[in-house]
């Protein structure tokens, strides 16, 4: 079959309503040429039929990106990235996905199996096309991002009835331009940092969620991100707006197939919570971490930030970070509204040659704002893991509170665990408390488990899960189970 026809067939099976762009183009044009310049941005923008203001916004971001320097303060080391050697647009597939699980890389399937992912979902993750009409298991609405274009969105109807908008952001630009224009970049401005500016210039897709006043989102929303084509950076942009008194729980899970080459990923997530609104954002990140010699793996440079704009609003971040060769990620809360609440629960596991520099920022602006940070860091192999967190009390944040707890666990003597908290207080009635510990798995605990017949690896898994309990219990049910198994898999080969 000629390549063009093959692509079309693939696209058709994916469902025409969810894939609108790129039909007229031939296969060569599905991937933009390598490199970044204003033409690339114009190409992305025109391919997505974007309005003029968005193109201008992208170009502004690009121009400020040119002036910016790549941050070097994080404790991660990697060879310089050639930003001109990356494809900034790939839509939607270079070649068709596997038709059934038999065609999927068995290594990948083994990982899924260990994770206990139902067959059905394995197919989804591996990119097997589902027959028309078949949907992922309820009650989780899935907006799957395969490479750069969201191609399958389920449960749209139920959500629509509740008044919730959950769609690819490219679609939101077409259908709800007033919302996108109002909120896009309002939490993470285009000039915020090097990677955020890059994302703003070249983002191709992502999710958009809008929960109107007083609505409790009827189901948990979920996005599976997946990096599929070779050498394409992923630049998702997620925007979640929750109006007065409304609430949503959003799950983000990530998997990536085995890859040899390092892949760049620079996503931006913006959350807006109005008065009495609440957003729970959970992430399980399990991208390819590179092999045991540190070859390959994803570079994950993510900017995630939530604004608690209204009084008594609440944003809660929960993350389980086990993947990626390099993680640079600081989900933050800007606590503007009086009495607003920010939470950050994190488990970061590094093994082999992984490097993670992750943490949070809690910026207390309003009165009586509260934040809690619980970060658990586990290092094994020859990896380095850093918790880096900022708590800032602004002069008007009277009566605000923060509590931070960071615990690190070292497995083996060739890894490193680091804690770098920044505490800045400019209000005398604001209180900040921080505590951190670093230790190894206690011999006593290990002995106790071994003596009762657990293998060393199982014992370590058990102890590590206990160590992370405070964070894992914050995860939604189905994620918590998956995350526990993920921890065990990530630490495979680190003991004995």
């Amino acid at each position, binding site marked *: 079959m000629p390549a063009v026809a093959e692509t079309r067939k693939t696209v058709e099976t994916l469902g025409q309503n969810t894939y609108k762009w790129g039909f007229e183009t031939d296969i060569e044009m599905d991937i933009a040429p390598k490199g970044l310049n204003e033409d690339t941005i114009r190409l992305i923008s025109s391919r997505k039929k974007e309005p003029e203001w968005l193109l201008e916004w992208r170009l502004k971001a690009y121009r400020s990106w*040119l*002036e*910016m*320097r*790549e941050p070097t*303060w994080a404790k991660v080391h990697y060879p*310089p*990235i050639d*930003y001109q050697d990356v494809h900034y647009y790939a839509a939607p597939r270079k070649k068709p996905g596997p038709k059934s699980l038999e065609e999927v890389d068995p290594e990948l399937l083994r990982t899924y199996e260990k994770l206990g992912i139902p067959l059905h979902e394995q197919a989804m993750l591996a990119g097997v096309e589902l027959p028309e009409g078949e949907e992922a298991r309820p009650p989780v609405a899935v907006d799957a991002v395969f490479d750069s274009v969201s191609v399958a969105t389920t449960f749209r109807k139920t959500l629509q009835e509740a008044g919730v908008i959950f769609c690819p952001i490219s679609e939101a630009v077409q259908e709800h331009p007033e919302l996108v224009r109002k909120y896009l970049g309002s939490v993470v401005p285009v000039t915020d940092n090097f990677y955020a500016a890059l994302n703003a210039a070249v983002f191709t897709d992502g999710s958009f969620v809008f929960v109107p006043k007083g609505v409790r989102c009827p189901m948990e929303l979920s996005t599976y991100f997946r990096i599929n084509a070779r050498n394409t950076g992923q630049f998702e942009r997620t925007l979640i707006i929750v109006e007065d008194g409304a609430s949503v729980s959003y799950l983000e899970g990530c998997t990536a197939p085995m890859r040899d080459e390092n892949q760049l990923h620079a996503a931006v997530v913006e959350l807006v919570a109005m008065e009495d609104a609440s957003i729970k954002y959970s992430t399980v990140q399990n991208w390819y971490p590179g092999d045991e010699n540190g070859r390959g793996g994803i570079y994950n440079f993510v900017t995630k930030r939530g604004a608690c704009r209204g009084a008594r609003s609440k944003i809660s971040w929960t993350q389980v970070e086990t993947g990626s060769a390099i993680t640079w990620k600081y989900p933050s809360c800007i606590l503007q509204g009086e009495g607003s609440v920010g939470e950050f629960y994190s488990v970061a596991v590094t093994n082999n040659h992984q490097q993670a520099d992750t943490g949070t920022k809690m910026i207390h602006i309003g009165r009586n704002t509260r934040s809690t940070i619980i970060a658990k860091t586990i290092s094994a192999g020859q990896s380095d893991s850093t918790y880096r967190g900022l708590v800032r*009390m602004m*002069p008007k944040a009277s009566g605000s509170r923060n509590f931070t707890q960071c615990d*690190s666990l*070292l*497995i*083996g*003597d*060739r*890894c*490193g*665990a*680091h*804690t*770098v*908290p*920044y*505490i*800045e*207080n*400019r*209000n*005398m*009635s*604001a*209180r*900040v*408390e*921080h*505590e*951190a*510990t*670093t*230790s*190894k798995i206690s011999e006593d605990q290990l002995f106790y488990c071994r003596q009762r017949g657990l293998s060393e690896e199982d014992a370590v898994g058990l102890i590590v899960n206990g160590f992370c309990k405070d964070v894992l219990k914050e995860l939604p049910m189905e994620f918590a189970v998956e995350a526990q198994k993920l921890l065990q898999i990530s630490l495979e080969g680190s003991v004995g």
Partner: protein
Amino acid sequence: MNAIAPVGISPSAFLDRGDVKGNAARLKAADYLRTVGLPRAGVEAWKYTSLRALADVPFAVAPRDVDVGVVDTLLAEVETISGLGAGANRAVFVNGRFDAGRSRLPVGVKVSAFDPAAGTRDGIDPAGDVTTALNTVLADDGLALVVPEGVDAGCLLLVSIGLAGDDAPVSFHPQHRIVVEKGGRLAMLDAAVGRGYYLHNPLYDITVEEGGYLSHARIQAEGRKALHLAVSHARVATHGVYDSFTLTLGASLSRHEVHAGLNAAGASVHVNGAQLLSDHQHGDLTSVITHAAPDCISRQTVKNVLADHARGVFQGKIHVERIAQKTDGYQMNQALLLSDTAEIDAKPELEIYADDVKCSHGATVGALDDDQLFYLRSRGIPNEAARSILIRAFLHDVVDQIDDARLKDSLNLAVEAWWKREVA
């Protein structure tokens, strides 16, 4: 990549003065200052303290001829705040130069004249940080003291007196080298006072050999127009103890950087301190404690009490190298804000590469505890007195950690004197 060269503020005023033809260390330090300069905004180690106050200021060599009357007044002031009377052994430096007439050194110690060619010992990188580099280039005097093996040298008062006019800035950069040999002991109270617009940039090159013991308490009570940039480099050998304490009271801008290396098993180091600041004062206590050998202990407690528009900075890093198994490290930093315009910035940092360690740190920042105040008020203690009790208790807790009883008494006196002056 769009990289921009990291060029800071040029310290040319200093370079024009320095004898950079000296030894290799001086050349290296001068080269560092010339190429890197003073830290620009965005340099992580100087995140919360700006040296802009040094840029483009023509600091001149501090004069030798000073008003003898004022020197004696200030010396008497030191005696009062430290409680160490005229009978105590002391080494007096006026504008960075040794004043033999006013000094009396303890018996049994070896003191030699400062040798600019000697340079600092190996292990101190003259280009490691700007404070060290500045001192290395410009040092022209200092105390070179050796406590010989097994000698208990008692207590020594090291005094620095800075005298300058209010608008003709001067600077002095003494380099003190203290070696406590095997089993030797020394308690050193180090007080800095002064008047006028000057920069005091001392470097302490400290070696504690096997089983040696050095207690080093500093009272930084410089004049309110002064700038104070101090750096200590300490290395401690097997079962040696370096117990240090910095009390920051004076100067408009000050920073004390402590680099302590635990280089052999069983060594221990305490890097404690308190900063009591008011007005628009800026005080920075930065430390890097490196565990480079197994079975070492480090302890750190730092407290800030900040009033008015004062800004306190604490940056403390505990670095545990791969070899340093069984490390026991503890760090606590607390701050009390007494006004809504005061600011505290703290960055307690753990960098750990060994797995069998016990390291922890804690930090709390806030105002006086309402419950504690209420407790005292409910027992009939007036508000001001209750506050006073709580603040002094807060400070007492850290001063109490000084091992040497004489130094502890001195520091307590200094805190009380500060309290009376600032609050009464």
